[in-house]
């Protein structure tokens, strides 16, 4: 359980190889593989019931897997007991011990680890201090606010100085303001302690703002793993493209043009190259709202009618009608000045920013001819 400095640890903290788990007839995890580098803030991202919690529980040893291998610090722990994995976990429900006080909650894992009383007291004191819970030490969890309960849950994990900290949607049960504060707090704690964090969340904002490395999950498996930038710039398939980025990527049905070296789109031809596909093939075209811009001077453009204007302060999201399809674009506050529904805007869709996904399987096509 004792954390040693991260430098003398293996490069890879956690490796899952071909992990499968069934609950009855349901595949919870389906040939799941990923690697988590030591000391990284790693995010498992995906909608609910995609297998995030099961993955964390499997790493902790709470769930026996049906197939595959789980390694922690290079050691195969697939069959190892829960105890001794050097893993701590924060549950979505917080899972505080309701019959114990805050101090006793903190002390519990240390007692179970057989630490001497004076060390337990010292560490509990430090943790209480660090999480500003000194006025709550003798309270039972039921008398604490949601934010305080969350800090106790976090403290009970951190006090063990785990090598690996598993966080299962820890902010879901908090209100918006607290959630925002806790995101910063978690990043700070990660920097301070340097442990590997595996963080499960269905919240894209949490994933992108905290994750150094993000694995996007779908139906019990990882569909793409990469840095927030990777996922944003080069989504490997439609699923990732649709999940990552706010506002979401515009996705339109199109096809590879027979006439030009590019696409037939609802609003005309676009010279984007053919992405290695043959003419006439159906594709889904993706364009980030922030990549769409207004034409300057006599630049070639398409006139589109404004349908909806959503001012968000520093930026404004404008929905325009593109020959029946709906396109969202992001304008600066100044750029959106005076834009009203019904106006026509000269819209430019930069060919180099267009993502193309094969209609048949949603796989992203590499740019080029």
């Amino acid at each position, binding site marked *: 359980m004792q954390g040693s400095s991260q430098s003398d640890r293996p490069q890879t903290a956690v490796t899952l190889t071909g992990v499968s788990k069934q609950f009855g007839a349901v595949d919870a995890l389906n040939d799941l593989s990923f690697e988590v580098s030591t000391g990284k803030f790693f995010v498992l991202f995906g909608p609910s019931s995609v297998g995030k919690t099961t993955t964390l529980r499997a790493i*902790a040893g709470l769930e026996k897997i049906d197939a595959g291998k789980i390694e922690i610090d290079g050691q195969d722990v697939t069959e190892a007991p829960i105890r001794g994995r050097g893993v*701590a*976990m924060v549950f979505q429900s917080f899972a505080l*011990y309701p*019959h114990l006080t805050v101090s006793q909650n903190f002390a*519990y894992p240390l007692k179970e680890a057989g630490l001497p009383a004076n060390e337990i007291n010292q560490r509990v004191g430090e943790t209480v201090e660090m999480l500003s819970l000194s006025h709550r030490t003798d309270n039972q969890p*039921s*008398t604490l606010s949601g934010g305080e309960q969350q800090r106790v849950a976090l403290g*009970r994990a951190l006090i063990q100085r785990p090598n690996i900290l598993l966080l299962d949607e820890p902010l879901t*049960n908090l209100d918006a303001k607290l959630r925002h504060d806790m995101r910063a707090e978690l990043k700070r704690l990660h920097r301070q302690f340097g442990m590997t964090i595996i963080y499960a969340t269905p919240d894209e904002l949490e994933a992108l703002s905290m994750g150094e490395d993000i694995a996007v999950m779908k139906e019990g498996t990882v569909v793409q793993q990469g840095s927030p930038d990777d996922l944003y710039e080069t989504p490997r398939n439609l699923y990732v493209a649709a999940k990552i980025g706010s506002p979401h990527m515009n996705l339109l049905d199109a096809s590879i043009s027979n006439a030009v070296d590019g696409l037939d789109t609802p609003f005309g031809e676009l010279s984007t190259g053919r992405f290695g596909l043959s003419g006439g093939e159906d594709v889904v075209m993706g364009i980030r709202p922030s990549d769409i811009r207004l034409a300057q001077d006599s630049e070639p453009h398409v006139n589109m009618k404004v349908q909806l204007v959503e001012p968000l302060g520093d930026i404004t999201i404008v929905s325009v009608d593109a020959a029946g399809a709906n396109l969202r674009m992001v304008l600066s506050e100044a750029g959106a000045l005076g834009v009203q529904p019904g106006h026509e805007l000269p819209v430019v869709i930069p060919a180099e920013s267009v993502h193309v996904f094969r209609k048949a399987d949603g796989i992203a096509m590499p740019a080029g001819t």
Partner: protein
Amino acid sequence: MFFRFNAKDQAREVDQAGWGRTIWAAIISLIYFFPVLFIVITAFKEHTDALAVPVKLFPEFMAFMVPEDLTFKPTFHNFVDVFSRSFSAGAAVQDTGFDRFFFNSVYIAGFSVLLALLIGTLAAFGFSRYPLKGNDTYLFVILTTRMLPAIVVIIPVMLMFRVTGLSGTYTGIILLYTAFNLPFTIWMMKSFFDELSPDVEDAARIDGSSERRVFFKICLPQVLAGLAATAVFGLILTWNEFLFALLLTGVETRTVPVAMSQTIGGDIGVRWGLLAAIETLFLIPVILVTFFLQNQLLRGVTFGTVKR
């Protein structure tokens, strides 16, 4: 399936209902309590007062506020007679053996309730956390012995006691009461365990607890209220049980309800005052236990009604 604690539930004004409703509640409570009150009052009456019509409900010292013919002169005579008295006019004062019967009741009820609690809690935890194939069937089977009237069940039970030689022994009646308390204990405790958050147990497992410690350090402390409630209900059932005790205990192991029934009769008719005195004494242990477990009991009874 997450639970959140609600601090607001903690503080609730005691007198929120106001005087009007409180008085209504008091009146209804008095009607509820009247049979008990009647018995307790009778325990302090002489034989003639006990039979008097109209019923004399008030002790002498309350004569200043009620008509005199409704008052009686309190006496402790009956309580003394419970333990030793002469059985016929002029005969010598004899020990009635009631100290023994009271001991038997306490010993048998206490032992069997504790035993049922011990076995039942473990069984309930098993049923809750490690369900068997066809778990519900087992739970149903456990309940079947309580589905028949005791008078029906007694026939095979008597046979079993005859064969095993358990008739009239402490072991026999304790085992029987334990078996009788078990269904209730298991069902009650299972529902308490079912209510617990499985995440809390998993948290303890990750924090390094063995399954045994998860049970003793995490689960059990959370269901103390349930244990108290189950113990009290079991105790009341066992304490007052009559039929099995009548047929399956011997002279040495007789419990108070049986002994009480045998006090009825004799050559001077039924001594109501004496009977009431026995009942009053008989009430005390249950009232004490209930009183001391009261806080736990209230929490236990309302357990699970609040979504945490």
